[in-house]
């Protein structure tokens, strides 16, 4: 067994170093709380805090459950069925991830909440239901986070060998039974990994719950961050502990689920949907109408309104610089995020190691922290370490902050990708005298490409919308599309916000297609 092998020292050392970097925000919170005059015990005993924490967990659990179902279904439909227009859907389906929640929620609500744009369309809708509170937050977060499940699961499904499914069919299993008994178990780790990300994202989200009036713990943190900073920091620590516990629990559960390595010699199976083909199509369209068309409707409406009243001048808007900035920094971040977690992915899947477990937990758990905590911890780290203070307010530190925040999204995808490479191939290459690097570049990476691209794609989309770290850490004057949207929203210049958000959507669509979808298709 490959897992029984002891890890090479360099691999362990590299993984430990990576984990240390990812521990920075946690260390920052601990040190802040240690010097502050708020005790964690008294915070945890506070009824208001308990209520907020409870609400956070309820919301995150509901969102994780629904995103798991929706993400898996969409992944299978797009990757493995004969759904009409599935190549178009392959580009569209991951897109909602790129809406920054503060503008996505605002736009979605402007379309589908009472008095929203849908009421003015000839659809026979008289009065729309309220979209707020737990229901609204659940809806909005599900619509904007299911790609965390969909992208990695689609990658996993594409990498599955058809032989097991073919055998099951030959043995007379019906398609649904094949899906439940053969496909789902093989995709289980990918589904669980994605679902965990959704849970952690929902825990960390502030923009959507704030806009939709759901008093989750992040709202208490934000409301107090200046007026009662010690309290806010202690609450941040509570959030981190919850995230780490959930991450550990998920790892425990995942340990029993062996991922069957898959060596695909043929294209993965495409399952004909038969008479369900068009109903499935209608369902996917309806879903995307909510997740993409509804917010886009508002964004377009604001843009058009601004253009006709003259308050928005496209010529003046000069979006090229932010477009290039956004795409450039997000691409670099995605590459670095994948490269950085790769040693850890190898260590945890191929070797027996004591470092791997805690390291993975740190990398993944950090995703639940609000962006402002990550940003401040990076300031703290770089200004207090003689080696790193040169990097303060440079792109390097910004990319490090992004990677620390979003590395969780690439690490599980990378681990799933590594585990799907059959160890016997590696062994065979080793016996033929191929050294480690040759094996990595000639065997592992080509086989892992779709999985790595999916993980990198998630990081890419998240980075493109990141706001707090960008505002605080970027070199002065560095504008991204997200900072533009934020600035316009703050000034209530919705026309500019709308136009910029549409451009952000278009750019991310293009990049997703080029880097994730097309790359996956190249392999077919």
């Amino acid at each position: 067994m490959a897992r029984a092998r002891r890890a090479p020292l360099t691999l362990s050392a590299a993984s430990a170093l990576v984990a240390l970097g990812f521990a920075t925000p946690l260390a920052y919170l601990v040190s802040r709380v240690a010097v502050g005059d708020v005790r964690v015990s008294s915070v945890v005993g506070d009824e208001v805090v308990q209520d907020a924490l409870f609400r956070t967990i309820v919301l995150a659990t509901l969102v994780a459950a629904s995103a798991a179902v929706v993400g898996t279904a969409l992944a299978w439909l797009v990757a493995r069925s004969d759904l009409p227009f599935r190549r178009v859907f392959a580009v569209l389906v991951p897109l909602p991830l790129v809406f920054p929640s503060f503008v996505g929620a605002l736009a979605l609500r402007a379309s589908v909440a009472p008095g929203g744009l849908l009421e003015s369309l000839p659809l026979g809708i008289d009065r729309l239901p309220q979209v707020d509170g737990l229901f609204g937050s659940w809806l909005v977060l599900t619509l904007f986070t299911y790609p965390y499940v969909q992208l990695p699961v689609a990658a996993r499904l594409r990498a599955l060998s058809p032989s097991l499914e073919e055998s099951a069919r030959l043995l007379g299993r019906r398609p649904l039974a094949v899906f439940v008994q053969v496909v789902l178990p093989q995709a289980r780790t990918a589904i669980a990994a994605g679902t965990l990300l959704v849970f952690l994202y929902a825990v960390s989200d502030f923009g959507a719950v704030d806009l939709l009036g759901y008093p989750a713990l992040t709202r208490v943190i934000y409301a107090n961050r200046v007026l009662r900073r010690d309290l806010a920091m202690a609450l941040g620590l509570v959030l981190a502990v919850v995230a780490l516990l959930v991450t550990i629990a998920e790892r425990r559960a995942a340990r029993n689920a062996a991922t069957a390595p898959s060596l695909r010699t043929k294209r993965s199976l495409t399952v004909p949907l038969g008479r369900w083909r068009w109903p499935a199509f209608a369902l996917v369209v309806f879903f995307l109408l909510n997740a993409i068309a509804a917010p886009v409707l508002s964004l377009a409406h604001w843009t058009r309104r601004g253009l006709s009243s003259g308050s928005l001048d496209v010529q003046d808007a000069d979006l090229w610089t932010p477009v290039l900035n956004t795409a450039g920094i997000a691409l670099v971040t995605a590459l670095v995020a994948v490269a950085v977690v790769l040693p850890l992915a190898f260590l945890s899947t191929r070797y027996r190691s004591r470092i791997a477990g805690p390291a993975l937990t740190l990398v993944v758990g950090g995703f639940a922290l609000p962006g402002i905590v990550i940003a401040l911890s990076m300031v703290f780290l770089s200004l207090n370490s003689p080696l790193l203070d040169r990097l303060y307010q440079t792109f390097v530190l910004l990319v490090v902050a992004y990677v620390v925040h979003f590395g969780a999204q690439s690490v599980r995808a990378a681990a799933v990708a590594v585990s799907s490479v059959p160890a016997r191939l590696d062994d065979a290459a080793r016996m033929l005298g191929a050294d480690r690097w040759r094996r990595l570049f000639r065997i592992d990476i080509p086989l892992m490409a779709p999985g790595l691209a999916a993980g990198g794609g998630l990081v890419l989309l998240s980075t493109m919308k990141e706001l707090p770290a960008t505002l605080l850490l970027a070199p002065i004057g560095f504008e991204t599309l997200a900072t533009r949207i934020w600035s316009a929203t703050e000034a209530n210049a919705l026309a500019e916000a709308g136009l910029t958000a549409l451009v952000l959507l278009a750019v991310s669509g293009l990049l997703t297609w080029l880097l994730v979808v097309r790359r996956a298709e190249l392999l077919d």
Partner: protein
Amino acid sequence: MRASSRRLPRLPRRATALLAALLLVAVAAPACSTDGDRLTIYSGRTSDLISPLLEDFSEETGIAIDVRYGDSADLALLIDEEGDRTEADVFISQSPGAVGFLDEQGMLSELDPALLDLVDEQFRAGDGQWIGLSGRVRVLVYNTDEVEGSELPDTVLELTDERFAGRVAVAPNNGSFQDFVTAMRLELGDEVATEWLDGMAANDAPTYSNNTAIVEAVARGEVPMGLVNHYYLERALAEDPDLPAANHFFAEGDVGSLLIVTGTSIIEGSDQSEDAQRLLEFLLSEQAQRYFAEETFEYPLARGVDPADTVPPLDSINTTTIDLDGLGGGLARTAELIQDSGLDR
């Protein structure tokens, strides 16, 4: 695999090269763009609302400027985290809360008395550490299709009446709302403020994240009224003059029509304090103050410049100074009161 096995292995090498190049540029970049003799401004006011003014300043004085835009509260936390390493020379805050925090942390330097004298006493910190530039008034924005003019209250205290149940939106976590509650504590005492907050909570006042969201929801008809700063509606009307929404100003001197000032300060230990002082003088000059009146529809605070015609004159507005001196428990207590009222749940 087949066709692509020759193509794929190449990607990482290309990627590594690209990455190395980018990292090199990034590491090399700061070496040539250190603070030097540039004036660094951290601005909690977004670029849409102030950059033309800052560019004018730079052009007229020849002083090179760097501006970091961000949320006022986040920038205050950043400056405090940077401590004596901060490059910030000037901090422009959207609200007294964030600049007050830095004052408490001892991060601000005392301003020149001549500069402080440009505005009335109530528009600056008692300890002379920050000064107001412009002000916005708290108002009740309402949907003109759904609310009759006669229904509108004279005082914000009336909003706890049953007839307003579920009809007045608030943004309890927003800095402006927090400042308004602080003013209420200063003027009417903690007991009245607590009672009012509890009353709003008992009235199930719908909560929103910020002024933009409330104005949007009111204009759309989702909620008939909301407590906001006056100039958000002016911006919304500039984009769509047909919006069925208007601002209601509370009666003269009511605590509800509070003027919230943007606070400006010079960071302690700034190596550009002379240029920083020139910037503050410029921002309080007639030219800049007129910009606030005409372009952002705010109240200019330097004496002698009038606000736009669309807003009531300054002397009918409540101008309670939000000063921490003599305010028991300071701003933290305000946050506590808001939280305990259960308004935000």
